[in-house]
């Protein structure tokens, strides 16, 4: 099903191309531009995550999908770091306000909350084996954080007036929400099960 990949490429590619055509870019320094696009890419990666773990992407069934989910998670952390560092250098006082939840902009706390949730998931995922987290415990931690990440990212993005074109931005956000809800329903993440999707994993 090549169609799914084409649709995904459009879902992420169209907002990026549309933002690349924004007249706002003319008034921004290179670092600010990179920081902004890192944010758009991060939102695109948030769309890929539930698609991978739900096994909806052809060529990435079960195990491979989960491996890719881990890698994309790491890439997401990198994109967020570029986003925050780039904005910090562009305007340190504005970034400090955002990180300390004292910003006048309504979208900042959503983004910062999602950022900490992403960092928490990435850190726990990296330490999961060492901490001996059982799949059920992991899911119990990861699912609420995943909801915070998705809801926070979408709210953050929608409230920003920047380079993103409004309709492609709203469409990407809607897809992120839809993919997350579908994956969570299909995987019945609220059910108590030992393993995800029934495939066997070595007991921790």
């Amino acid at each position, binding site marked *: 099903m090549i169609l799914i990949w084409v649709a995904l490429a459009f879902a992420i590619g169209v907002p990026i191309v549309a933002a690349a055509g924004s007249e*706002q870019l003319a*008034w921004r320094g290179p670092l600010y531009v990179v920081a902004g696009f890192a944010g758009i890419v991060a939102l695109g990666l948030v769309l890929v995550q539930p698609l991978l773990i739900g096994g909806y992407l052809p060529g990435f069934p079960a195990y491979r999908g989960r491996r890719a989910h881990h890698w994309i998670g790491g890439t997401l952390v990198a994109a967020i770091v570029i986003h925050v560092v780039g904005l910090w250098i562009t*305007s340190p006082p504005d970034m400090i306000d955002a990180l300390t939840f004292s*910003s*006048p*902009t309504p979208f900042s706390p959503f983004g910062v909350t999602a950022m900490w949730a992403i960092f928490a998931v990435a850190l726990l995922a990296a330490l999961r084996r060492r901490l001996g987290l059982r799949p059920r415990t992991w899911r119990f931690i990861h699912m609420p954080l995943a909801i915070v990440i998705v809801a926070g990212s979408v709210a953050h993005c929608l409230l920003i*007036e*920047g380079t993103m074109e409004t309709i492609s931005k709203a469409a990407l956000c809607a897809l992120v929400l839809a993919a997350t809800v579908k994956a969570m329903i299909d995987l019945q993440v609220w059910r108590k099960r030992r393993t995800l999707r029934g495939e066997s994993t070595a007991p921790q």
Partner: protein
Amino acid sequence: MTMVVLNRRYLLAAGGSVLAAGMSGLLLPARAEGLAPTESMSGGANNYRKGAPTVDRIGKGGFWMSGSVRRAGDGAPLVGQRIQIWAHTTEGQEHEPQSHGATLTDKDGKFRLEMPQIIPIFGQPHGHLAYDSGEFKTVFLRPVMRSAKETSLEAHFVLQPA
């Protein structure tokens, strides 16, 4: 038939409004009597450069920043007060010197300064204004434009003695 419900909250509210109406009749100019000072806005002081020069226009202009400066309490217009203005515009980023300028209020306490078009920065099209001249308490404002397409923005100061 209309039911009039009398309870404590209603009576307090009614009594309060009667009292307020009566007081305003006695004290003239009444409404200005209690004019509260403007609080600094969060993020208002971001990228402030102290002592921006008083200019006729910032850069090439095309955008108008205007407003008023009044005294807390009686609301009297404050003449000759220096208001500093800066923003991320088509001619420079917020922290850059060319993005900053100052102007003085006229005899009616009004000010108006032409500057380059403000563009969205950090997700909101906004400007910055400061009163920071010592005679009154320092106030930093950060008004947001309803749309990035607007070509003017207003901000109003009510100052209290330092």
